């Protein structure tokens, strides 16, 4: 199979370039990550991130033929040759396929992605009705791979001010949680021309999410709450 890989190593002083790689691999039943690992076995200078190799850890998000995907759950048979593999767009490249996730994590942290509840803890756990728990479906499954946020043009333009789809989906996950008591403060935190309203409904995030989640819908729920609070 033919591959084109984005190569960059800062200490050589060279500009980033695309490297053509020919790999003898049977595509049937194999994922892109298998191919990348095989290429790395041939040329150990190739840098990438991977861990669980089954779409749970979110480490190996890369841009494949123009789409952000997890290499470990992208079947080789689905891909058109030459398979062009680049680092995630919109984040600084550290080396080859490895990007600096700091801008992404900073926005994630800014929505306080944890349960805020000042009521004294009960004897056992904080209980939740099954219906309340159902509201978290489609919001809690995010693995923070950054496929969505780095596919979002609004995030490319405003990475330091726009929370981005992943962060906003997590913001909604805690707003929607019946055990969370900080809804008003969370809405205050988001009501901002940049933090929330840079979302123009492009929906690249929905297209990119390898877990099939819908950040645009979550952003719509947040906007609906803000409108209800206002009018």
């Amino acid at each position, binding site marked *: 199979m033919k591959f084109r890989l984005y190569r960059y190593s800062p200490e050589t002083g060279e500009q980033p370039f695309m490297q053509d790689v020919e790999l003898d691999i049977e595509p049937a039943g194999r994922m892109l990550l298998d191919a990348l690992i095989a290429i790395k076995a041939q040329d150990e200078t190739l840098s990438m991130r991977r861990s669980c190799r089954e779409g749970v850890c979110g480490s190996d998000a890369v841009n494949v033929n123009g789409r952000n995907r997890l290499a470990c759950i992208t079947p080789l048979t689905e891909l058109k040759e030459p398979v062009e593999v680049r680092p995630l767009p919109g984040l600084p490249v550290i080396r080859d396929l490895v990007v600096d996730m700091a801008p992404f994590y900073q926005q994630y942290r*800014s929505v306080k992605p944890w349960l805020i509840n000042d009521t004294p803890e009960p004897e056992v756990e904080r209980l939740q009705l099954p219906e309340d728990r159902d509201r978290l479906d489609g919001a809690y499954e995010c693995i923070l791979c950054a496929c969505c946020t780095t596919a979002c043009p609004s995030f490319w333009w405003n990475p330091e001010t726009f929370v981005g789809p992943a962060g906003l989906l997590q913001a909604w996950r805690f707003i929607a949680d019946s055990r969370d008591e900080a809804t008003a403060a969370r809405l205050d*935190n988001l*009501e*901002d021309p940049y*933090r929330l*309203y840079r979302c123009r409904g492009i929906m690249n995030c929905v297209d990119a999410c390898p877990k099939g989640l819908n950040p645009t819908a979550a952003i719509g729920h947040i*906007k609906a709450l*803000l*409108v209800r609070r*206002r009018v």
Partner: protein
Amino acid sequence: MKAITGAHSGTGSWLLQRATAVLLALALPGLAVYVLAALPVDFAGWQALFAPQGVRVLLLLAAVALALHAWVGMRDILMDYVRPTGVRLALLLAVIVVLAGSVVWLAAVLWRPA
């Protein structure tokens, strides 16, 4: 670290853009059909088309909605692409002048004494 917080604004302009979009979606096809149905017209016929007070009011309302809609959109574009505050302020002002000027101009044309 400085606490990150929202500016407590943005919902209003987002709502305004949605509301004016609905108004435009209703008014523009209506006005277009009204004008197209009367074609071809000479100048007198064209003037007669806009003689009814209701048509003038609807047209002016649509123009105001369009200006408000365009204001939110232009502001979004400038927020994305123009970073220096001074340049951005100057351009925002220019957008206001053009949009407000166009609406006032349209009103003057519509209610010009024959």
